[in-house]
């Protein structure tokens, strides 16, 4: 039976067998950022809820996101969001049956990573411009 764990069955080679490659790391990052965003959205809802409640409570939450730790969380959240969005665009391209040329795949992986960093920094430069 499938539940019989006593027999030592051969296992198919898993992740730790392979030499880490950029495309593989990007696939893992897509999943990790997705799970991170899943929980991170609670922060956004916390902020919105505070805005609907009272001035005092909203100032407290704004204060938290103004603190370096809150800023770090927000920075991580925005990077994860952009990284996951760009990764999603790659997947949408592959869903159409295109973009499987190995060199293109490698380029897309690099563009995804570089693009997520550049766009996140750009977003924060704009953000600090808004606050100034």
């Amino acid at each position, binding site marked *: 039976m499938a539940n019989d764990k006593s027999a030592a069955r051969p296992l198919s080679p898993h992740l730790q067998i392979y030499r880490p490659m950029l495309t593989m790391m990007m696939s893992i990052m897509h999943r990790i950022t997705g799970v991170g*965003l899943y929980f991170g*959205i609670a922060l956004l809802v916390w902020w919105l809820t505070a*805005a609907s409640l009272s*001035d005092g409570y909203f100032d407290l939450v704004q204060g938290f996101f103004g603190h370096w730790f809150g800023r770090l969380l927000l920075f991580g959240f925005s990077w994860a969001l952009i990284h996951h969005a760009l990764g999603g665009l790659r997947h*949408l391209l592959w869903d159409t049956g295109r973009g499987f040329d190995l060199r293109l795949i490698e380029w897309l992986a690099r563009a995804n990573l570089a693009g997520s960093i550049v766009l996140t920094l750009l977003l924060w430069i704009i953000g600090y411009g*808004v606050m100034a």
Partner: protein
Amino acid sequence: MSPDKSGTRHFWQQRATAIANVPLVLFLLWFIVSHLGAARAEVVASVQNPINAILLVLSFASILWHMRLGMEMVLEDYVHEERWLNAGLLLNQVFIIVVGVAALYAIFEMFIGA
């Protein structure tokens, strides 16, 4: 995946919400960044703009649906014990509903002028 085509539906819904999320996430990022350090009155005034309110509701609807599907896939990949898988899938639903109701309620409160 069960042979009832739920896998295909899962696939398509994941893609449909992914496509919808692209513009909606851009809107959300703009909404957050333009209110960094803002006073509560400014946020409330923005939410009272019907276009913003509608876009916020659509954003949460599409994002939360996408999140539910994504987490289902992750749980199905890593949780093999049926009991724990079912518990995880249930917790996933609960999380999505709690976050969704909280977001909707906050938007509604501000929209009607709290």
